[in-house]
């Protein structure tokens, strides 16, 4: 009976949400009906489908007003303050500066010798859809049954009990992450942006108000996966051919649904995959495009122009450094590794200076992990890339390099107004590091998400343990 109670509440909650949505839709349909009684010159708008049928139920956990003093601050937008102060309360950043006005009784943390930064944002993660343990039963990242699976949504695969979320938080200082479908398919499906806060449901982790992304992929993976099955695409030209055919259909779908939603009439057939592509063409869903080679990225940029969409970010983009100028001109970001290379043909030309060269070219650059281990050390990955850039003669400050970890991924995800830097009014997603986070010897000491202290190295009670690890060997250990 006790077991059933929470489940019942969830069901009720979901039902209430469904009713509310239905109610909205009914209202929307009802009003035109009333108008229809009036002179028939005005068309009757059709009934729109829900853009948010699995809404976020994330709620920030409570925090206490907190002031950190005497701390070195990277604000995430390129600014640095030595021996500065930061105040946050009610889940939001209140003020950051050399000194700030803090109310009496605020919890004060002496940050002498420590560093304060925005929480790290990983734009490319498969936590939850390729969780630990990586057994076949948990392998939910690639719907590799057809090259166009824009109908799948990563959030329907995310297992919120993945132990990897806890490592990303405690060791990596990651507070926001985008979970993507894999790259087997040209159109891999919809991504989801999560707050790195454990919840019973994926809805409970969803970043409120974050736009959706569409995962696309260039290159070797789609042509290998489908070529080996004797079907299109089996070549890079096949990749683009299927892409174009799909976008052409999407444009048609959009035209029909736009017309219906405006003018009414017979509703067009619903196509869940096309909903997503229509969202891209409408600018509501951001394209997150796996692509390694420079020449292929250039083709994708033209394809985006051909069909009227924008590529938010190329992921992996190991050859982005060859076309930094082109990326800048197109307003397209590159999310890259620091030094992964050579594991496949299209990664053969990767160099450690990719990030600094992009920065140097004025393009939008960021680090990403694509890996449950790498996500625990993104600050270190940036440190390596930064050092490589400096050895090559590029003058980039530590504070500027921090943009690769927070504000740039926030922009690429469409959430830069909410998180990604230590600016007043933004979410208090914050990491206190025990030393310079660009040193290999540093670790997160405290991590706050929306002002709630969710990791504290000094407090074993502030260390999350997923359901899967509970009662297992090493459960609750310092990992």
């Amino acid at each position, binding site marked *: 009976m006790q077991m059933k109670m929470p489940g019942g509440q969830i069901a009720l909650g979901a039902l209430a949400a469904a009713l509310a949505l239905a109610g909205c839709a009914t209202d929307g349909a009802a009003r035109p009906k009333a108008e229809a009684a009036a002179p028939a010159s005005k068309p009757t708008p059709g009934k729109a489908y829900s853009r948010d049928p699995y809404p976020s139920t994330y709620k920030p956990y409570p925090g206490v007003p907190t002031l950190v003093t005497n701390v070195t601050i990277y604000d995430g937008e390129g600014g640095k303050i030595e021996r500065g102060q930061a105040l946050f309360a009610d889940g939001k950043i209140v003020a950051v500066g050399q000194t700030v006005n803090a109310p009496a009784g605020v919890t004060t943390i002496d940050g002498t010798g420590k560093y304060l930064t925005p929480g790290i944002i990983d734009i490319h993660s498969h936590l939850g859809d390729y969780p630990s343990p990586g057994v076949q039963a948990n392998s939910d990242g690639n719907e590799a049954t057809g090259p166009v699976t824009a109908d799948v949504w990563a959030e329907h695969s995310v297992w919120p009990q993945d132990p990897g979320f806890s490592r990303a938080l405690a060791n990596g200082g990651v507070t926001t992450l985008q979970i993507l479908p894999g790259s087997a398919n040209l159109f891999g499906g919809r991504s989801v942006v999560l707050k790195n806060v454990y919840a019973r449901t994926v809805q409970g982790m969803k970043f409120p108000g974050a736009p959706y992304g569409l995962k696309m992929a260039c290159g070797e993976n789609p042509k290998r996966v489908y070529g080996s099955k004797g079907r299109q695409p089996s070549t890079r030209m096949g990749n683009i051919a299927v892409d174009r055919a799909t976008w052409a259909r999407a444009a048609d779908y959009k035209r029909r649904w736009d017309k219906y939603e405006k003018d009414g009439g017979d509703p067009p057939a619903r196509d869940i995959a096309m909903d997503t592509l229509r969202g891209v063409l409408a600018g509501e869903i951001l394209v997150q495009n796996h692509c390694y080679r420079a020449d292929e990225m250039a083709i994708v940029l033209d394809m985006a122009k051909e069909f009227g969409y924008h590529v938010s970010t190329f992921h992996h983009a190991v050859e982005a450094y060859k076309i930094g100028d082109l990326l800048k001109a197109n307003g397209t970001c590159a999310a890259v590794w620091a030094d992964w290379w050579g594991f496949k043909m299209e990664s053969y030309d990767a160099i450690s200076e990719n990030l600094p060269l992009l920065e140097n070219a004025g393009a939008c650059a960021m680090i990403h992990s694509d890996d449950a281990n790498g996500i625990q050390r993104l600050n270190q990955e940036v440190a390596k890339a930064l050092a490589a850039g400096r050895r090559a003669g590029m003058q980039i400050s530590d504070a500027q390099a921090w943009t690769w970890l927070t504000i740039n991924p926030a922009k690429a995800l469409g959430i830069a107004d909410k998180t990604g830097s230590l600016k007043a009014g933004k979410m208090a997603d914050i990491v206190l590091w025990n030393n310079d986070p660009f040193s290999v010897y540093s670790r997160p000491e405290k991590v706050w998400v929306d002002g709630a202290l969710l990791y504290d190295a000094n407090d074993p009670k502030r260390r999350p343990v997923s359901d899967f690890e509970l009662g297992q*060997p090493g459960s609750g250990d*310092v*990992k």
Partner: protein
Amino acid sequence: MKRLLLLTAAFLASPVAAQSVAITNARLVIGDGSAPIDGGTVVVRDGKIVAAGKAVAVPAGIETVDAGGRYVTPGIVAGFTRMGIIEVDGVDETNDAGANNSPFHAGIDIAPAVNPRTSSIALNRAEGITRAVVAPTTRGSIFAGQGAIIDLGADSNTVSTPRAFQFMEYGESGASAAGGSRPAALTAFRDALKSAQAFARAPGAYLDQGRDVLVNRVDAAALGAVVTGRVPLLIHVERASDMRALIALKQDFPALRMVFVGASEGWMVASELAAAKVPVIASALNDLPEAFESLAATQSNVGRMKAAGVVVGLGTINDNEARQARLEKQYAGNLVALRHVPGATGLSWDQAFAAISSVPAEAVGLSGEIGSLRPGRRGDVVIWDGDPLELSSAAIGVYVDGVKQPLGTRQSELLKRYRQPQEGALPKAYER
């Protein structure tokens, strides 16, 4: 033309014409776990270390390099790699780590396949790695074959110790290779060792056993070196209980020199590992239950094993091991960082450096040969522009067998070409 000839001569001569050099004014790291020595000198003569320490005289007439107070260390010994036998992992034609359809397993010798021109050798050389343990991959048997120790010098004489060890898989991978279970893997293991003994006793009569012989002569001959302890047996194993099962085998095969690779749950059996004198080449930062055999994985694994007296160095099994040995420096640094995490167990800086130099050498029985700057070891020396475990540091001088090494790579050529992405007077293809 003359320059070309000289270059060719140098290449031809380099395997034998090992060099002599003295590096002075160093923050000298011996690599054996001792603390750095400021104002130290290391002397390499004819390719071997002859002296290293504070009050070391520089012999007359020897080339001398002033390190300017910088770190000078033994070259990094990569504890478990597949370097030199794979160019691009995903391009089968360039991947000699394993053979899907070969009748041979333990007998496979990877040494002749090592290609000195593999681009990961140059890349890792430029990052201060001078030696690597190179293992084949298992295919269709628990045994992968005979691995080698290579040096990363820019010459054609890359394999420094062929057939240095045998590699096998146990645990989940071994079970799979043996037909589907751990008991099947252990049965195959015991049978193979007994076959090796039988073959050694009477090679000519070996096949007279008829259908009972499951191990072919080539494999049985190679396993003879294992069962008699002439070479160590590196075993990939992660789960605590699997390590116990392997240690128990020493009762029947006392000469076996087992070395555990991976060992994510090693901390749970640390005292048993220490008592059995089984060295470990660990994956430093595994902290996820990425398989059921590594549920208790924690970054404190290495520190806890070390504290219990286990000989534990670092390797990179199943971690980009064809190409990314350079990451071991970062991994070692992370183990030092753990000392400031409450409840975690890390390593001291000195221990961490040893874990990527002398300890892996010791684990494969070559500590008298490589891995430290103690007299008699090979002259593998690196000068760094900073703390070698720190992310911002780079190797600025690399010596292998006393020979100063070039530090250029394919990657440095690409950087040069694309330092400015736009084309100049001619296409990029003309810039080099």
